Protein backbone atom coordinates (compact mmCIF):
# COMPACT_ATOMS: atom_id res chain seq x y z
CA UNK A 1 0.00 0.00 0.00
CA UNK A 2 2.78 2.42 -0.58
CA UNK A 3 2.09 5.77 -2.18
CA UNK A 4 4.91 7.06 -4.29
CA UNK A 5 5.74 10.73 -4.11
CA UNK A 6 8.44 11.53 -6.57
CA UNK A 7 10.11 14.77 -5.58
CA UNK A 8 9.15 17.92 -7.41
CA UNK A 9 11.03 20.93 -8.70
CA UNK A 10 12.96 22.89 -6.06
CA UNK A 11 10.44 25.68 -5.67
CA UNK A 12 10.46 25.33 -1.91
CA UNK A 13 14.22 25.69 -1.97
CA UNK A 14 13.82 28.93 -3.87
CA UNK A 15 11.40 30.14 -1.23
CA UNK A 16 13.85 29.07 1.42
CA UNK A 17 16.45 31.41 0.03
CA UNK A 18 14.07 34.30 -0.27
CA UNK A 19 13.01 33.64 3.30
CA UNK A 20 16.67 33.72 4.28
CA UNK A 21 17.21 37.14 2.80
CA UNK A 22 14.41 38.49 4.99
CA UNK A 23 15.98 37.06 8.08
CA UNK A 24 17.10 40.22 9.92
CA UNK A 25 20.77 40.53 10.75
CA UNK A 26 22.04 37.86 8.40
CA UNK A 27 20.00 39.42 5.61
CA UNK A 28 22.49 40.00 2.83
CA UNK A 29 25.02 37.38 3.73
CA UNK A 30 24.19 33.79 3.04
CA UNK A 31 27.62 32.67 4.00
CA UNK A 32 29.31 30.07 1.84
CA UNK A 33 32.24 27.77 2.39
CA UNK A 34 33.90 25.18 0.21
CA UNK A 35 32.08 21.86 0.02
CA UNK A 36 35.48 20.26 0.57
CA UNK A 37 35.72 21.75 4.05
CA UNK A 38 33.00 19.56 5.48
CA UNK A 39 34.32 16.56 3.59
CA UNK A 40 37.66 17.09 5.29
CA UNK A 41 36.01 17.41 8.68
CA UNK A 42 33.74 14.36 8.47
CA UNK A 43 36.27 11.51 8.58
CA UNK A 44 38.01 13.28 11.45
CA UNK A 45 34.72 13.68 13.24
CA UNK A 46 34.06 9.96 13.00
CA UNK A 47 37.63 9.20 14.02
CA UNK A 48 37.54 11.50 17.00
CA UNK A 49 34.31 9.98 18.28
CA UNK A 50 35.73 6.47 17.81
CA UNK A 51 38.75 7.42 19.87
CA UNK A 52 36.72 9.10 22.64
CA UNK A 53 34.44 6.06 22.79
CA UNK A 54 37.54 3.90 23.06
CA UNK A 55 38.97 5.99 25.88
CA UNK A 56 35.68 5.91 27.77
CA UNK A 57 35.53 2.15 27.39
CA UNK A 58 39.11 1.65 28.57
CA UNK A 59 38.54 3.91 31.54
CA UNK A 60 35.45 1.98 32.61
CA UNK A 61 37.24 -1.34 32.16
CA UNK A 62 40.03 -0.12 34.37
CA UNK A 63 37.56 0.95 37.02
CA UNK A 64 36.00 -2.50 36.79
CA UNK A 65 39.45 -4.01 37.34
CA UNK A 66 40.00 -1.77 40.33
CA UNK A 67 42.67 0.33 38.65
CA UNK A 68 42.81 4.07 38.52
CA UNK A 69 41.46 5.23 35.18
CA UNK A 70 44.30 6.52 33.06
CA UNK A 71 46.86 3.98 34.30
CA UNK A 72 47.87 3.17 30.73
CA UNK A 73 48.07 6.74 29.55
CA UNK A 74 51.16 5.88 27.54
CA UNK A 75 49.40 3.16 25.63
CA UNK A 76 46.42 5.38 24.97
CA UNK A 77 48.65 7.95 23.37
CA UNK A 78 50.32 5.41 21.14
CA UNK A 79 47.06 4.01 19.99
CA UNK A 80 45.43 7.27 19.03
CA UNK A 81 48.56 8.49 17.31
CA UNK A 82 48.53 5.29 15.29
CA UNK A 83 44.99 6.07 14.20
CA UNK A 84 46.12 9.51 13.15
CA UNK A 85 48.94 8.16 11.06
CA UNK A 86 46.62 5.81 9.25
CA UNK A 87 44.21 8.62 8.60
CA UNK A 88 46.93 10.81 7.22
CA UNK A 89 47.35 8.50 4.29
CA UNK A 90 43.84 7.36 3.51
CA UNK A 91 41.40 9.72 5.15
CA UNK A 92 39.06 6.84 5.78
CA UNK A 93 40.18 4.72 8.69
CA UNK A 94 39.29 1.14 9.32
CA UNK A 95 36.78 0.89 12.13
CA UNK A 96 37.21 -1.27 15.21
CA UNK A 97 35.55 -4.70 15.09
CA UNK A 98 34.13 -4.17 18.57
CA UNK A 99 30.35 -3.97 18.16
CA UNK A 100 29.73 -2.66 21.64
CA UNK A 101 32.17 0.15 20.95
CA UNK A 102 30.59 0.95 17.60
CA UNK A 103 27.24 1.15 19.35
CA UNK A 104 28.70 3.94 21.50
CA UNK A 105 30.03 5.65 18.39
CA UNK A 106 26.56 5.39 16.87
CA UNK A 107 24.96 7.04 19.90
CA UNK A 108 27.44 9.90 19.83
CA UNK A 109 27.30 10.49 16.08
CA UNK A 110 23.55 10.32 16.01
CA UNK A 111 23.42 12.92 18.80
CA UNK A 112 25.82 15.17 16.89
CA UNK A 113 23.47 14.91 13.91
CA UNK A 114 20.38 15.43 16.07
CA UNK A 115 21.67 18.77 17.33
CA UNK A 116 22.56 19.80 13.79
CA UNK A 117 19.03 18.94 12.64
CA UNK A 118 17.47 20.95 15.46
CA UNK A 119 19.57 23.97 14.62
CA UNK A 120 18.97 23.72 10.88
CA UNK A 121 15.23 23.66 11.52
CA UNK A 122 15.47 26.66 13.84
CA UNK A 123 17.63 28.54 11.40
CA UNK A 124 15.19 28.05 8.58
CA UNK A 125 12.05 28.50 10.64
CA UNK A 126 10.61 31.31 8.47
CA UNK A 127 9.83 28.63 5.94
CA UNK A 128 9.10 25.79 8.30
CA UNK A 129 6.30 27.53 10.18
CA UNK A 130 4.06 26.82 7.21
CA UNK A 131 4.41 23.08 7.61
CA UNK A 132 1.51 21.48 9.37
CA UNK A 133 1.37 17.70 9.07
CA UNK A 134 4.07 15.04 9.22
CA UNK A 135 4.11 14.41 5.47
CA UNK A 136 4.81 18.12 4.86
CA UNK A 137 7.74 18.01 7.25
CA UNK A 138 9.09 14.83 5.65
CA UNK A 139 8.83 16.51 2.25
CA UNK A 140 10.67 19.49 3.70
CA UNK A 141 13.45 17.06 4.66
CA UNK A 142 13.45 15.41 1.23
CA UNK A 143 13.65 18.63 -0.70
CA UNK A 144 14.95 21.59 1.25
CA UNK A 145 17.03 19.95 3.93
CA UNK A 146 18.59 17.50 1.47
CA UNK A 147 19.24 20.33 -0.96
CA UNK A 148 20.96 22.26 1.78
CA UNK A 149 23.01 19.28 2.90
CA UNK A 150 23.85 17.58 -0.35
CA UNK A 151 22.87 19.90 -3.20
CA UNK A 152 20.32 17.39 -4.40
CA UNK A 153 16.93 16.06 -3.44
CA UNK A 154 15.93 12.64 -2.19
CA UNK A 155 15.23 10.44 -5.21
CA UNK A 156 12.25 8.63 -3.88
CA UNK A 157 9.83 8.94 -0.98
CA UNK A 158 7.42 6.21 0.03
CA UNK A 159 5.00 6.03 2.90
CA UNK A 160 2.49 3.53 4.22
CA UNK A 161 0.43 6.49 5.52
CA UNK A 162 0.69 4.98 8.97
CA UNK A 163 3.78 6.63 10.26
CA UNK A 164 6.49 5.01 8.20
CA UNK A 165 8.38 6.98 5.57
CA UNK A 166 11.14 5.57 3.39
CA UNK A 167 13.57 7.98 1.76
CA UNK A 168 15.89 6.75 -0.92
CA UNK A 169 18.98 8.53 -2.13
CA UNK A 170 20.57 6.74 -5.09
CA UNK A 171 23.79 8.73 -4.98
CA UNK A 172 24.39 9.57 -1.36
CA UNK A 173 27.03 12.27 -1.54
CA UNK A 174 29.18 11.15 1.36
CA UNK A 175 29.45 7.68 -0.20
CA UNK A 176 30.58 8.81 -3.62
CA UNK A 177 34.24 9.02 -2.70
CA UNK A 178 34.26 5.86 -0.65
CA UNK A 179 34.64 3.25 -3.34
CA UNK A 180 37.36 1.23 -1.66
CA UNK A 181 38.97 -1.80 -3.22
CA UNK A 182 38.10 -3.87 -0.17
CA UNK A 183 34.81 -5.02 -1.70
CA UNK A 184 31.13 -4.65 -0.88
CA UNK A 185 30.70 -5.75 2.69
CA UNK A 186 33.85 -4.11 4.03
CA UNK A 187 33.14 -0.87 2.19
CA UNK A 188 29.57 -0.84 3.46
CA UNK A 189 30.80 -1.36 6.99
CA UNK A 190 33.30 1.44 6.70
CA UNK A 191 30.62 3.69 5.25
CA UNK A 192 28.17 3.01 8.04
CA UNK A 193 29.09 5.85 10.42
CA UNK A 194 28.53 8.34 7.63
CA UNK A 195 24.84 7.51 7.52
CA UNK A 196 24.41 7.76 11.29
CA UNK A 197 25.02 11.48 11.15
CA UNK A 198 22.20 12.22 8.65
CA UNK A 199 19.94 9.81 10.59
CA UNK A 200 20.41 12.14 13.54
CA UNK A 201 19.90 15.22 11.38
CA UNK A 202 16.57 13.89 10.08
CA UNK A 203 15.44 13.00 13.59
CA UNK A 204 16.51 16.46 14.81
CA UNK A 205 14.58 18.33 12.13
CA UNK A 206 11.43 16.30 12.78
CA UNK A 207 11.83 16.68 16.53
CA UNK A 208 11.83 20.45 16.27
CA UNK A 209 8.38 20.15 14.70
CA UNK A 210 7.27 18.13 17.69
CA UNK A 211 7.42 14.81 15.84
CA UNK A 212 9.25 12.03 17.69
CA UNK A 213 10.78 9.46 15.40
CA UNK A 214 13.23 6.64 15.12
CA UNK A 215 15.40 6.91 12.00
CA UNK A 216 17.45 4.04 10.67
CA UNK A 217 19.44 3.78 7.48
CA UNK A 218 20.82 1.00 5.37
CA UNK A 219 22.68 0.64 2.15
CA UNK A 220 22.23 -2.18 -0.31
CA UNK A 221 25.32 -1.13 -2.18
CA UNK A 222 27.26 2.11 -2.26
CA UNK A 223 26.44 4.84 -3.08
CA UNK A 224 22.76 3.98 -2.64
CA UNK A 225 21.24 4.70 0.75
CA UNK A 226 17.80 4.29 2.29
CA UNK A 227 16.51 6.07 5.38
CA UNK A 228 13.48 4.76 7.21
CA UNK A 229 11.61 7.17 9.44
CA UNK A 230 9.22 5.68 11.94
CA UNK A 231 6.98 8.04 13.85
CA UNK A 232 6.78 7.18 17.53
CA UNK A 233 3.30 8.06 18.71
CA UNK A 234 3.34 10.08 21.89
CA UNK A 235 -0.09 8.96 23.09
Amino acid at each position, binding site marked *: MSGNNSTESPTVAARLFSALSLDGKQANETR*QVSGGTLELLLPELVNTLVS*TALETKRASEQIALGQEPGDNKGNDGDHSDGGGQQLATSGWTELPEDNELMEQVYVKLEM*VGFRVGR*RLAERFSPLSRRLTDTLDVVKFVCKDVWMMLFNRQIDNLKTNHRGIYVLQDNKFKWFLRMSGNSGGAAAARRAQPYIWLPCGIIRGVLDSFGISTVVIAETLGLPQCTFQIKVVSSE
Partner: protein
Amino acid sequence: MSAKQYKTVGEEAWKNNVEKVNAELFIFTYGSLVVQLVKDYEDYTAVNKQLDKMGYNIGVRLIDDVLARTGLEKCADFHSTAEVISKVGFKVFLNITPSVQNWSSDGKEFSLIIDDNPLNDFCELPPRAVQDGLWYSNVFCGVIRGALEMMQMQTEVYFVRDVLHGADVSEIRVKLVKVLDEEVPANDE
Protein backbone atom coordinates in the same frame (compact mmCIF):
# COMPACT_ATOMS: atom_id res chain seq x y z
CA MET B 1 55.19 36.24 -5.42
CA SER B 2 53.81 39.27 -3.65
CA ALA B 3 50.98 39.30 -1.14
CA LYS B 4 48.76 40.78 -3.81
CA GLN B 5 49.52 37.95 -6.21
CA TYR B 6 48.68 35.35 -3.55
CA LYS B 7 45.43 37.19 -2.98
CA THR B 8 44.61 36.80 -6.67
CA VAL B 9 45.51 33.10 -6.61
CA GLY B 10 43.19 32.56 -3.64
CA GLU B 11 40.33 34.51 -5.15
CA GLU B 12 40.63 32.80 -8.52
CA ALA B 13 40.67 29.38 -6.88
CA TRP B 14 37.63 30.23 -4.79
CA LYS B 15 35.81 31.53 -7.84
CA ASN B 16 36.64 28.76 -10.30
CA ASN B 17 37.86 25.64 -8.55
CA VAL B 18 35.70 25.30 -5.49
CA GLU B 19 32.25 23.82 -4.99
CA LYS B 20 30.51 26.39 -2.83
CA VAL B 21 27.93 25.29 -0.28
CA ASN B 22 25.86 27.00 2.40
CA ALA B 23 28.00 27.33 5.48
CA GLU B 24 25.35 26.33 7.99
CA LEU B 25 25.81 22.58 7.78
CA PHE B 26 29.53 22.89 8.35
CA ILE B 27 29.12 25.44 11.14
CA PHE B 28 26.44 23.44 12.97
CA THR B 29 28.27 20.15 12.54
CA TYR B 30 31.43 21.61 14.00
CA GLY B 31 29.47 23.20 16.85
CA SER B 32 27.67 19.98 17.61
CA LEU B 33 30.95 18.09 17.65
CA VAL B 34 32.43 20.53 20.17
CA VAL B 35 29.36 20.08 22.37
CA GLN B 36 29.83 16.30 22.15
CA LEU B 37 33.50 16.55 23.09
CA VAL B 38 32.68 18.79 26.05
CA LYS B 39 30.14 16.19 27.21
CA ASP B 40 32.60 13.34 26.70
CA TYR B 41 35.65 14.90 28.32
CA GLU B 42 34.08 17.31 30.81
CA ASP B 43 37.38 19.17 30.61
CA TYR B 44 38.01 22.12 28.32
CA THR B 45 41.76 21.61 28.12
CA ALA B 46 41.21 18.07 26.85
CA VAL B 47 38.72 19.41 24.31
CA ASN B 48 41.27 21.97 23.06
CA LYS B 49 43.76 19.18 22.65
CA GLN B 50 41.32 16.96 20.80
CA LEU B 51 40.32 19.76 18.42
CA ASP B 52 43.96 20.51 17.72
CA LYS B 53 44.68 16.85 17.01
CA MET B 54 41.69 16.66 14.71
CA GLY B 55 42.90 19.73 12.89
CA TYR B 56 46.37 18.25 12.53
CA ASN B 57 44.97 15.19 10.77
CA ILE B 58 42.94 17.43 8.49
CA GLY B 59 45.95 19.63 7.79
CA VAL B 60 48.18 16.81 6.60
CA ARG B 61 45.52 15.78 4.11
CA LEU B 62 44.47 19.26 3.07
CA ILE B 63 47.81 20.49 1.81
CA ASP B 64 47.76 18.40 -1.39
CA ASP B 65 44.30 19.65 -2.14
CA VAL B 66 45.41 23.26 -1.80
CA LEU B 67 48.41 22.74 -4.05
CA ALA B 68 46.29 20.94 -6.63
CA ARG B 69 43.61 23.61 -6.72
CA THR B 70 45.97 26.53 -6.99
CA GLY B 71 49.03 25.19 -8.80
CA LEU B 72 51.20 26.78 -6.11
CA GLU B 73 54.58 25.35 -5.26
CA LYS B 74 56.59 25.22 -2.09
CA CYS B 75 57.07 28.64 -0.54
CA ALA B 76 60.50 30.26 -0.71
CA ASP B 77 60.35 31.70 2.80
CA PHE B 78 58.21 31.91 5.91
CA HIS B 79 56.77 35.28 4.89
CA SER B 80 55.30 33.73 1.74
CA THR B 81 54.04 30.83 3.85
CA ALA B 82 52.11 33.27 6.03
CA GLU B 83 50.57 34.93 2.99
CA VAL B 84 49.56 31.60 1.48
CA ILE B 85 47.89 30.44 4.71
CA SER B 86 45.88 33.63 4.94
CA LYS B 87 45.10 34.47 1.34
CA VAL B 88 44.91 31.01 -0.19
CA GLY B 89 44.32 28.43 2.57
CA PHE B 90 41.65 30.25 4.57
CA LYS B 91 40.18 31.73 1.39
CA VAL B 92 39.77 28.45 -0.48
CA PHE B 93 38.14 26.55 2.39
CA LEU B 94 36.30 29.17 4.42
CA ASN B 95 36.11 32.18 2.11
CA ILE B 96 37.78 34.44 4.66
CA THR B 97 41.16 36.15 4.57
CA PRO B 98 42.74 36.72 7.98
CA SER B 99 45.36 39.44 8.01
CA VAL B 100 49.00 38.65 8.71
CA GLN B 101 50.39 40.86 11.47
CA ASN B 102 52.78 41.17 14.41
CA TRP B 103 55.88 39.66 12.82
CA SER B 104 58.63 38.95 15.32
CA SER B 105 61.95 40.65 14.60
CA ASP B 106 63.60 37.35 13.63
CA GLY B 107 60.85 36.68 11.10
CA LYS B 108 59.92 33.34 12.64
CA GLU B 109 56.63 34.28 14.26
CA PHE B 110 53.51 35.99 13.03
CA SER B 111 49.86 36.34 13.93
CA LEU B 112 46.77 35.67 11.89
CA ILE B 113 44.06 38.15 12.81
CA ILE B 114 40.56 36.83 12.15
CA ASP B 115 37.60 39.17 12.48
CA ASP B 116 35.06 37.10 10.59
CA ASN B 117 35.31 33.49 11.70
CA PRO B 118 32.40 31.48 10.22
CA LEU B 119 32.60 28.97 13.08
CA ASN B 120 31.59 31.78 15.44
CA ASP B 121 28.31 32.40 13.61
CA PHE B 122 25.41 31.47 15.89
CA CYS B 123 27.90 30.54 18.61
CA GLU B 124 28.02 31.81 22.15
CA LEU B 125 30.17 30.18 24.79
CA PRO B 126 28.92 29.58 28.32
CA PRO B 127 30.89 31.69 30.87
CA ARG B 128 32.42 28.54 32.31
CA ALA B 129 33.94 27.60 28.93
CA VAL B 130 35.47 31.06 28.56
CA GLN B 131 36.81 30.99 32.10
CA ASP B 132 38.38 27.56 31.64
CA GLY B 133 39.95 28.57 28.36
CA LEU B 134 38.08 26.67 25.68
CA TRP B 135 39.47 27.76 22.31
CA TYR B 136 36.40 26.97 20.29
CA SER B 137 38.11 27.14 16.88
CA ASN B 138 41.25 25.36 18.01
CA VAL B 139 40.88 23.03 15.03
CA PHE B 140 42.43 25.85 12.94
CA CYS B 141 45.68 25.62 14.91
CA GLY B 142 45.94 21.92 14.22
CA VAL B 143 45.18 22.37 10.54
CA ILE B 144 47.94 24.97 10.13
CA ARG B 145 50.42 22.87 12.11
CA GLY B 146 49.61 19.72 10.13
CA ALA B 147 49.74 21.42 6.74
CA LEU B 148 53.05 23.13 7.51
CA GLU B 149 54.55 19.91 8.76
CA MET B 150 53.86 18.38 5.36
CA MET B 151 55.87 21.28 3.95
CA GLN B 152 58.78 20.35 6.26
CA MET B 153 58.08 23.09 8.77
CA GLN B 154 57.70 22.23 12.41
CA THR B 155 55.58 24.88 14.10
CA GLU B 156 53.75 25.81 17.25
CA VAL B 157 50.33 27.26 16.60
CA TYR B 158 48.00 28.56 19.27
CA PHE B 159 45.18 30.99 19.99
CA VAL B 160 46.18 34.20 21.76
CA ARG B 161 42.71 35.75 21.96
CA ASP B 162 39.26 35.02 20.67
CA VAL B 163 36.17 37.07 19.85
CA LEU B 164 34.15 34.46 21.74
CA HIS B 165 36.13 35.39 24.88
CA GLY B 166 35.19 39.04 24.40
CA ALA B 167 38.22 40.17 22.37
CA ASP B 168 37.59 42.49 19.44
CA VAL B 169 39.34 40.13 17.02
CA SER B 170 40.68 36.59 17.20
CA GLU B 171 44.42 36.04 17.00
CA ILE B 172 46.30 32.86 16.15
CA ARG B 173 50.04 32.85 16.72
CA VAL B 174 52.21 30.79 14.36
CA LYS B 175 55.78 30.10 15.40
CA LEU B 176 58.34 28.35 13.23
CA VAL B 177 60.32 25.97 15.42
CA LYS B 178 62.53 24.41 12.80
CA VAL B 179 62.70 23.38 9.20
CA LEU B 180 62.68 19.60 9.00
CA ASP B 181 65.14 17.59 6.99
CA GLU B 182 63.73 17.16 3.53
CA GLU B 183 65.56 13.96 2.75
CA VAL B 184 63.32 10.96 2.43
CA PRO B 185 64.47 8.04 4.58
CA ALA B 186 66.11 5.27 2.52
CA ASN B 187 63.56 2.61 3.49
CA ASP B 188 60.58 4.77 2.53
CA GLU B 189 59.56 4.39 -1.07
